[in-house]
């Protein structure tokens, strides 16, 4: 029997090239499997094989979107695969967005099935879950062992044009498509069971999750920027040198509040980044590249803004849960409000 031909897309980290310092790595195609492709190959058995692996740095992909898409599409086309698999990306944001973007492009341009995998809070999941099958993974590479067989199984179903079951059975992120089926228990029974579990404080699963439309109306514009206090906030992890509060390099559990009274410029001797999700060389050399205190001070002196708020808020937006980020910001937003700050510039890496 003919083996299906698979092309696998991974980032520089999973290819063993290196971490953030190699995130600018340009796309390249290699024969056979690389890194996590080995486990996928094992799961495919004699049914499919990875003919080529495409490796691309996460920053390169996201910063050179059109060029990266075109180059990678040409590479995929050149080996004529039956299916395209990307990741899994777990909770790596740029990797997840890259996987989703390139899957969407391949699906559209080459008309072959695609599949990827990521954690539900990965921004790529929200962007692409209704456009392709995204296997639900844990938030870190520790979930590789569980993710691989699910991805391989779904890939083979797609290749064999077998029907795909409900997301909860097959292990992909719900994509909004409804599948009719007969359950073992009738509805009234399931509803009462659910209610009893809920009353007893036991876990239960709703059959109709409410859609999550978390949108906030834009605040009115600042009337006269020359007369207001503007604050700086960042998810780029800028902290005083030495990271006094020990903000974690990923999955941050806290934010920092630091006084910048009298600080006109962030230097390599005084500030650095605690962020573990991008190459820290540039921010460590000059943290103004992420938290622009120098120019904001110029604006203040020149009367372009009223005042720069004398504190900044910072955390590390690297695999940090939405729940934590929301709690951090709800806390410091109230402090900003109490101090009559009227505008915020929030920078992200």
């Amino acid at each position, binding site marked *: 029997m003919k083996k299906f031909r698979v092309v696998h897309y991974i980032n520089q980290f999973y290819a063993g090239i290196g971490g953030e310092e190699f995130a600018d790595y340009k796309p390249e195609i290699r024969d056979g499997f690389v890194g996590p492709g080995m486990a996928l190959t094992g799961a495919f058995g004699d049914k499919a094989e990875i003919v080529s692996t495409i490796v691309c740095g996460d920053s390169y992909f*996201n910063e050179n979107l059109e060029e990266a898409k075109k180059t990678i599409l040409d590479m995929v086309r050149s080996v004529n695969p039956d299916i395209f698999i990307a990741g899994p990306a777990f909770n790596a944001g740029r990797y997840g*967005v890259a996987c989703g973007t390139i899957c969407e492009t391949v699906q559209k341009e080459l008309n072959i099935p695609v599949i990827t995998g990521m954690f539900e809070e990965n921004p790529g999941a929200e962007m692409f879950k209704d456009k392709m099958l995204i296997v639900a993974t844990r938030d870190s590479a520790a979930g590789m062992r569980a993710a691989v067989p699910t991805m391989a199984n779904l890939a083979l179903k797609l290749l064999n044009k077998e029907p795909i079951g409900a997301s909860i059975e097959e292990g992909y992120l719900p994509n909004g498509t409804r599948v009719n089926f007969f359950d073992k228990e009738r509805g009234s029974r399931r509803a009462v069971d659910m209610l009893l579990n809920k009353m007893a404080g036991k876990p239960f699963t709703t059959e109709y999750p409410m859609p999550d439309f978390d949108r906030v109306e*834009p605040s009115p514009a600042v009337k006269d920027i020359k007369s207001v206090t503007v604050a700086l906030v960042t998810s780029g992890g800028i902290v005083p040198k030495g990271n006094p509060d020990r903000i974690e390099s990923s999955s941050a559990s806290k934010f920092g509040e630091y006084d910048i009274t009298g600080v006109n410029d962030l230097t390599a001797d005084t500030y650095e980044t605690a962020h573990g999700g991008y190459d820290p060389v540039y921010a460590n050399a000059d943290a103004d*590249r992420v938290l622009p205190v120098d*120019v904001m001070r110029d604006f203040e002196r020149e009367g372009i803004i009223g005042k720069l708020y004398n504190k900044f808020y910072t955390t590390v937006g690297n695999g940090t849960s939405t729940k934590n980020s929301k709690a951090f910001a709800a806390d410091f*937003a109230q402090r900003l409000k109490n101090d009559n700050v009227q505008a*915020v510039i929030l*920078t992200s*890496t």
Partner: protein
Amino acid sequence: MVKEIERVGIPVVHVCTVTPISMTVGANRIVPAIAIPYPLGNPTLDVKEEKQLRRKILNTALVALSTEVDGQTIFEVK
């Protein structure tokens, strides 16, 4: 974080490189930045040019803060 700031009624501008993520998260005022490890800089420029670039981006950020929007808006740096 942008949404929590906006929720207390303070206008906020999100300066970031991967603007599709910012759109997905729900920022209302967005200014595209230079690169992931140096959103408001460019180490290939000399110090003076780099600061000039940073100033240009922040000028756009101030324009964004001073502009009424009725939905998610990306303000390109000119």
